[in-house]
């Protein structure tokens, strides 16, 4: 087999466009996932049975099914859902990007919710009582006192989940989106250069994820040192 | 039975054992004492190869241990060991703890191993607990199982590394009683311990260690009544106050 470096060089800009989209999905997934996930976590801890029941069911459902299946669900259902509200029930064409952003927020939120919930449980019960004793409202207690502590306690797990999310973005391949892997696939098929393209994107994913996981490991060391 | 010649050991630049020499006869009971950090635990663990040595040699029976000697199977059969934290295997029953090395290391038959285990456990007073797991026993009971486990391989020498220091005070004696009766039956024993009553009553000789050196060796009565070195005097003054 002959490796064609020139093909790689000419493909590089397109690969970077794909990587840019991969990063966009990651950022949206992380930001939206943590916000929605935190709401789910708070809902699960709520005394309102209906609220906590819904949150629990949602999290367990999402964690039981494959991400690819969720991508398909959203891909087929979002056009209907939007059409239902705006277009007298007829489906509306929706771009792949929107489908993907919605999917990742909905899906990753379930995973972040469990992590944030573990964070809340790691806070001593005294903190909750202290908030009440100070007369802080529920909302203020969570925003200023509880949430920051919860996040700090689970920061390494949160970041590790984010690396997993970054890897999961490659699954948007199933609806032919042009993320890093999608870009590589399109060039690979056009030029018949599967080997070079897939080895290259494998290396790019590896470098990013390995570097990130080493950073998390360092942070973990520093956090546990600070706790001593 | 045990010859220790010019044994030294380093942790990096730090010398934990400094040119140790001694000899222990068959049937002798030796107590090693000294302040914490004096290297006595490391010293006793060199005698069955759990700690490697950097120079010198140790001869146990027919086995010669020197730096770089790696096949320790014979040595491990000759020497039994009891640990400070018992180190029973928590996933096995009391009976299995005592049979597993017999069947898997010595390849004894199951029936023979169990019979041996039952008689040893009876000897340490634990016949009623054969099917329990270690976590269901008190510390003193666990340590007695650990002694039975080591004896099951018919060792010629028994090493005890602070066997009572992890125990609640009221359980110390039940373990010391087992050790005393073992000594009376003629077992060669090396014990790192702070139990001075045991040392005085049972040991033939006491080795006093400090800073990785064997500072003094004397018969037990002489050591307690007339310690020769200043360091031994200071150590005895300190522990006898308690």
């Amino acid at each position: 087999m002959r490796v064609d470096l020139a093909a790689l060089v000419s493909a590089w800009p397109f690969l970077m466009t794909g990587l840019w989209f991969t990063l966009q999905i990651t950022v949206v997934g992380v930001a939206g996932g943590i916000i929605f996930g935190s709401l789910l976590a708070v809902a699960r801890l709520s005394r309102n049975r209906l609220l906590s029941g819904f949150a629990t069911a949602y999290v367990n459902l999402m964690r039981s099914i494959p991400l690819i299946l969720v991508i398909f669900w959203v891909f087929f259902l979002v056009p209907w859902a939007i059409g239902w509200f705006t277009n007298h029930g007829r489906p509306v064409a929706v771009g792949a990007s929107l489908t993907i952003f919605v999917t990742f927020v909905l899906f990753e939120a379930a995973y972040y919710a469990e992590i944030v919930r573990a964070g809340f449980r790691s806070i001593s019960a005294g903190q909750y009582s202290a908030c009440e004793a100070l007369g802080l409202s529920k909302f203020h207690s969570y925003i200023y006192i509880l949430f920051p502590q919860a996040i700090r306690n689970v920061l390494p797990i949160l970041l590790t989940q984010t690396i997993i999310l970054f890897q999961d973005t490659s699954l948007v391949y199933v609806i032919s989106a042009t993320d890093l892997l999608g870009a590589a696939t399109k060039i690979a098929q056009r030029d018949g250069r599967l080997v070079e393209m897939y080895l290259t994107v494998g290396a790019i994913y590896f470098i990013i994820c390995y570097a990130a996981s080493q950073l998390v490991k360092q942070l973990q060391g520093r956090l546990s040192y600070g706790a001593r | 039975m045990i010859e220790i010649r010019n044994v030294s050991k380093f942790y990096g630049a730090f010398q934990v054992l400094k040119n140790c020499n001694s000899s222990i006869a068959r049937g002798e009971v030796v107590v090693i004492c000294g302040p914490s950090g004096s290297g006595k635990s490391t010293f006793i663990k060199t005698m069955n190869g759990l700690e490697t040595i950097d120079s010198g040699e140790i001869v146990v029976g027919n086995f010669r241990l020197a730096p770089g000697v790696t096949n320790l199977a014979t040595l491990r059969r000759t020497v039994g060991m009891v640990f400070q934290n018992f180190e029973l295997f928590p996933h096995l029953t009391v009976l299995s703890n005592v049979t597993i090395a017999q069947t898997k290391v010595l390849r004894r038959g199951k029936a023979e191993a169990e019979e041996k285990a039952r008689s040893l456990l009876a000897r340490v007073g634990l016949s009623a607990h054969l099917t329990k797991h270690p976590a269901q026993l008190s510390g003193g009971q666990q340590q007695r199982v650990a002694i039975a486990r080591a004896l099951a391989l018919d060792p010629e020498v028994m090493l005890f590394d602070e066997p009572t220091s992890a125990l609640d005070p009221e359980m110390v004696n039940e373990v010391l009683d087992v050790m005393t009766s073992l000594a009376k039956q003629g077992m060669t024993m090396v014990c790192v311990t702070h139990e001075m009553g045991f040392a005085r009553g049972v040991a033939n000789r006491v080795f006093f260690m400090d800073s990785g050196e064997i500072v003094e060796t004397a018969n037990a009565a002489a050591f307690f009544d007339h310690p020769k070195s200043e360091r031994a005097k200071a150590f005895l003054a300190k522990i006898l106050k308690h």
Partner: protein
Amino acid sequence: MSLLFEATPDGAGRYLDWIISGLAWTLCLALGAWTIALVVGTLVGVIRTFPDGILPRIGRVYVETFRNIPLLVQMFFWYFVLPELLPARIGMAIKQMDPPWGSFVPALICLGLFTAARIAEQVRAGLQALPKGQAQAANALGFDASGMYRLILLPQAFRIILPTLTNEFMTIFKNTSVALTIGLVELTATAREINENTFRTFEAFGVVTIIYLLIALIAWQVMHRIEQAARLPGIASGKA
């Protein structure tokens, strides 16, 4: 759910048959890959705890490689890239395997080795959580390395990691869906095919979603039973 009992366009059966076939491939792939993952993962986890030599480093390279590349990219590696890198005759033989084996075998190897890296990390963590004295006690009793790991250390380490292993076991069923990208018609691919044939999206994906939920429930039950059976008297769960 009437959809399930309607005839498929090829006239060979009902959509229910498609679902059953998809489910069977999902289960075969998950359980086969789990077996590979347990064996390889335990071996790699064990060698990572060796004190020195080349083996712990090989173990580390294995874990970092398989953990830091997306599963889908690894799927493509086994399916598209490897046959090209092998000698032409072997490469051709792989490419000409009859369907669905041509997809199933690479997917099995891929998912097995991918999950093995994750299990290896758990096994290593479990082994390192044991008191140092356990290995010393095993040594003092004359166990060789193999006996020490098999009889003394691993049974304890596995008890410690059972809860995380449960999570991993549930994950492997979900990860089988990635095999649809190399042409294995497992459960998710079946839903997509039914949808393409009938445009009855809700029913097609709904049935499959419920099946995944049931799989998760059963997988959890199985592991829960194992956890109960492995629990030691006198010790709270989750500890050795």
